[in-house]
């Protein structure tokens, strides 16, 4: 986003100085650039200030360029997590093509039915993971290695307007699964993987921060 017009009209000397760091990177508007160039002709010490800004920029750039790349395993880990969360990251029903129209027709546009359907799907997948979970953790991939059996359960009430995709994405980000519900009042039982107590608090905070999706979160048993 570039400034198309300086809000204060002609540039004051202080404005000129403030904009120098963006002038050297070409991130000022044409009008601002013209103002700075005009000031360079009339303000004798401005050229020195500009030179100082250029030295600073060069130093910052050099220092950043010498940072070694991220370890290759960072991308590998990301792709594993992407694969793991893919099953929870259900595409938005509204955006699907012909193939999903039957689903839309069957479920209607009521978001809560879509969430209930998601819960059923997720519970089936979770059951599948438990049934086929190998004795050696991780043998069947990252998804199977998430230990929900010893996890903490939460009672979560979603906003009526929350879509299936939003709920799935939200829970997927926490590696959480819906294991039961909806209960009276539209509450779902959500299970977190086996994590420490502070992580449960963090998960609750994370859920509660999505006020557009979540109404309440309570610790379960």
């Amino acid at each position, binding site marked *: 986003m570039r400034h198309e017009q300086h809000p204060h009209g002609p540039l004051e000397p202080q404005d000129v100085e403030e904009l120098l760091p963006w002038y050297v990177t070409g991130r000022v508007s044409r009008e601002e650039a013209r103002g700075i160039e005009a000031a360079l002709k009339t303000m004798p010490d401005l050229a*020195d200030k500009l030179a100082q800004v250029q030295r600073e920029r060069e130093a910052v750039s050099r220092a950043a360029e010498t940072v070694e790349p991220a370890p290759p395993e960072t991308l590998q880990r990301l792709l594993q997590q992407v694969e793991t969360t893919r099953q929870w990251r259900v595409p938005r029903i509204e955006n699907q093509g012909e193939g999903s129209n039957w689903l839309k027709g069957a479920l209607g546009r009521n978001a809560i039915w879509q969430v209930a359907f998601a819960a059923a799907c997720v519970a089936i997948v979770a059951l599948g993971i438990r049934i086929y979970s190998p004795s050696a953790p991780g043998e069947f991939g990252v998804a199977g290695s998430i230990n929900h059996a010893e996890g903490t359960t939460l009672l979560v009430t979603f906003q009526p307007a929350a879509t299936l995709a939003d709920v799935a*994405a939200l829970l997927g980000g926490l590696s959480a699964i819906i294991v039961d519900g909806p209960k009276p009042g539209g509450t779902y039982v959500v299970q977190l993987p086996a994590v420490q107590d502070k992580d449960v608090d963090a998960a609750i905070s994370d859920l509660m921060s999505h006020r557009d999706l979540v109404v309440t979160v309570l610790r379960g048993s």
Partner: protein
Amino acid sequence: MDMLSARSADAAASDGQLLARIARGDQDAVTALYRRLERPLFAFLVKTLRDREAAADVLNETMLDVWRQAGRFEGKSSVATWIYSIAHHKAISWLRKRREVELDEETAAQIVDEAPPADSKVAAEDMSHTIARLMEKLSVDHRIVLQLAYFQEFSVGQIAEILDCPENTVKTRMFYARQRLRAMLEAEGIEGAAA
């Protein structure tokens, strides 16, 4: 499409096009966008957090959020601004968890000073290293604004979006960051620091 042409298609795609593919669940687009942003974003995080391991974790979390939230991107800002905003938020959260935001100035003051004697002149080629070294002593807010403006080359408006603050705040932070830097250069007796 073979792998080679798929890669060149990824390279030619705009950030917005890659993000749209990510929103549709395209994992190759995740890889392509990661490879495109990894170097500058990781450098930004390393300079912000001063911790490579944490920077890798935050990079990972940021890109995972991009994967999860791609469908929610509304195009009100550029894709890069949006992603840096996520990364900045996560980096600050990480620092808060480590209580380094409050201790930042104190920590910076404890960094071992490898400055040359005050009366020595710093050669032009050393100036860059000196500035970079002194920059490490700045507060996290000041380091971030310098990085975003000088290395990432974001505009004032984009930085304001990334930091979620008014544009005047961005300019003020830059002003004080540079003022502090000049003061440190002067303290080392470096000529031209007062410019």
